[in-house]
């Protein structure tokens, strides 16, 4: 437990040693704001909520989270530091969890930096703060799921670029599974049932239901179990591939 904390602390600190981290924070905060105001028609909607703000989060994550997760294992493997790391007296599970938690906390910081948005809507009107809190939670959860996916992809390769691109494609696919666009595309081909099944595996539908303020345990479990599976897969990949 203490070891997990030590590992997480180091990984977290290491984010701020690379420019990528600062760029990530800057892009995330500014882009999430800009998208809300321009694409999301924040003022035009005339409603005091953050719906349009959260709507864009999964799409931002699809491109930005892989930039955070690509380094996780690929860089350790490329530089060879993985050898030192994996001969410390900690289990592979703790190592994976430590890196994951650090990355998640880092993305958490990015979310915290968007709090001015929340203050703004409260200043402009009278939003349902419960829904906003839930939406933040949902956003944080889906970010965690993307990160665990990225962690698994990063463990498979020594190249950060490959890790980035593959994680992005995979995230895109999983998000897309739940989107209307895909549903419309296949509505003629697949039966209703198949579409429903597809959709239930899509990230978007679970995310959207949470951001509407409906606290459904199944949505929470969906993200948590998805993350669990990817992290577990990371452990397996590492134990098999670490030295190759």
């Amino acid at each position, binding site marked *: 437990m203490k070891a997990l904390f030590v590992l997480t602390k180091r990984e977290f600190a290491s984010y701020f040693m690379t420019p990528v981290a600062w760029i990530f924070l800057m892009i995330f905060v500014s882009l999430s704001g800009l998208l809300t105001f321009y694409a999301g028609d924040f003022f035009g909607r005339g409603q005091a909520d953050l719906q349009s703000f959260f709507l864009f989060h999964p799409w931002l994550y699809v491109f930005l989270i892989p930039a955070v997760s690509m380094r996780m294992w690929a860089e350790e493997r490329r530089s060879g530091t993985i050898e*030192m790391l994996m001969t410390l007296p900690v289990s592979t599970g703790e190592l994976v969890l430590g890196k994951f938690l650090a990355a998640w906390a880092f993305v958490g910081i990015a979310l915290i930096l968007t709090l001015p948005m929340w203050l703004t809507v409260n200043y402009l009107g009278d939003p349902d703060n419960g829904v906003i809190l839930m939406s933040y939670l949902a956003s944080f959860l889906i970010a965690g799921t993307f990160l665990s996916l990225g962690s698994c992809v990063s463990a498979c390769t020594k190249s950060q670029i490959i890790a980035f691109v593959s994680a992005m494609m995979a995230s895109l696919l999983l998000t897309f599974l739940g989107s209307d666009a895909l549903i419309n595309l296949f509505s003629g081909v697949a039966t209703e049932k198949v579409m429903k099944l597809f959709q239930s595996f899509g990230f978007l539908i679970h995310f959207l239901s949470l951001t509407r303020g409906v606290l459904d345990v199944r949505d929470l479990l969906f993200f948590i179990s998805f993350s669990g599976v990817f992290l577990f897969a990371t452990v397996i990949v590492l134990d098999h591939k670490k030295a190759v």
Partner: protein
Amino acid sequence: MITLENVTRKFGSFVAVDNLSMTVPKGQVLGFLGPNGAGKTTTMRMISGFLTPSAGKITVCGYDVAEDPVEVKRHIGYMPEVASSYGDMTVLSFLNFITEARGLFGSAKEKAVEKVIADISLSNVLYQPIDTLSKGYKRRVGLAQALVHDPAVLILDEPTEGLDPNQKREIRTLIRDLQKDKSIIISTHVLEEVEAMCSRAVIIDKGKIVLDDTPRALISLSETHQTLFVLIASYQRERAQTVFNEMAQITVTDVKQESDEAFLFTLIPKGRESVTADVVEALRRQDIKILDMFIEKGRLEEVFYAFTSPDRELKDPNA
């Protein structure tokens, strides 16, 4: 205490370590030698739990590496061949991290870090990012990282590679000091180092042990072992030659004029035993004066070459 029982490691169909068995008791410093690609690093990675053997069993301090990897890692200090530290961290923060990850906190941590900084002489680079250190200093940080928790077993993969002569010396002294309550395996390509700090030398080639003995015993396998160089005054040269020719147990391989007054004879014993006493006695009986004399102990390098070079004739170490 380290034991390897019939350990094999394959990469695909390539056998990097081939049915290797050995035991390293407490108090032993084992020099692990072999040509490039012999399987030294692979073996050390398996002991440290980084690589899993394809077959065989490894135990460290009584714990099975396959069954109890975390407990094994707790007892090992391992210095990998490459990249044994995070380049973006400073020396001090890296050592603090490693010490904490090894379960030492508070004053125990501070004491351990302070001691290792003194032992490895790192005090003047503490706040420098490791990336900006010279190669030798990087190696030293790697060594510090392996020693900081005072482990019962040390696995060092070419620890002195890239160190300056002074540092090499200090590390040798350090390792000799650490020796008494630890099992240590050191791989190296610097053969004098083995004589200086190891109590046992194992030479492997193509994943198999080819020689395993004390450095002194290995040296005695050298072609030039017990070769005698005798300096004789010029006016006694002829007589000395006759004396040597009459001795059945030696061959004169070389006679060289050293100066106007002296000749140097090179005598190789036909057997493995020392012929010094016989030679001295034979010369004394003829009243031939020995101006100077020295005995070649042999060189590990020759033995290494004889047993691992691609064009070696197969030799029996007991012949």
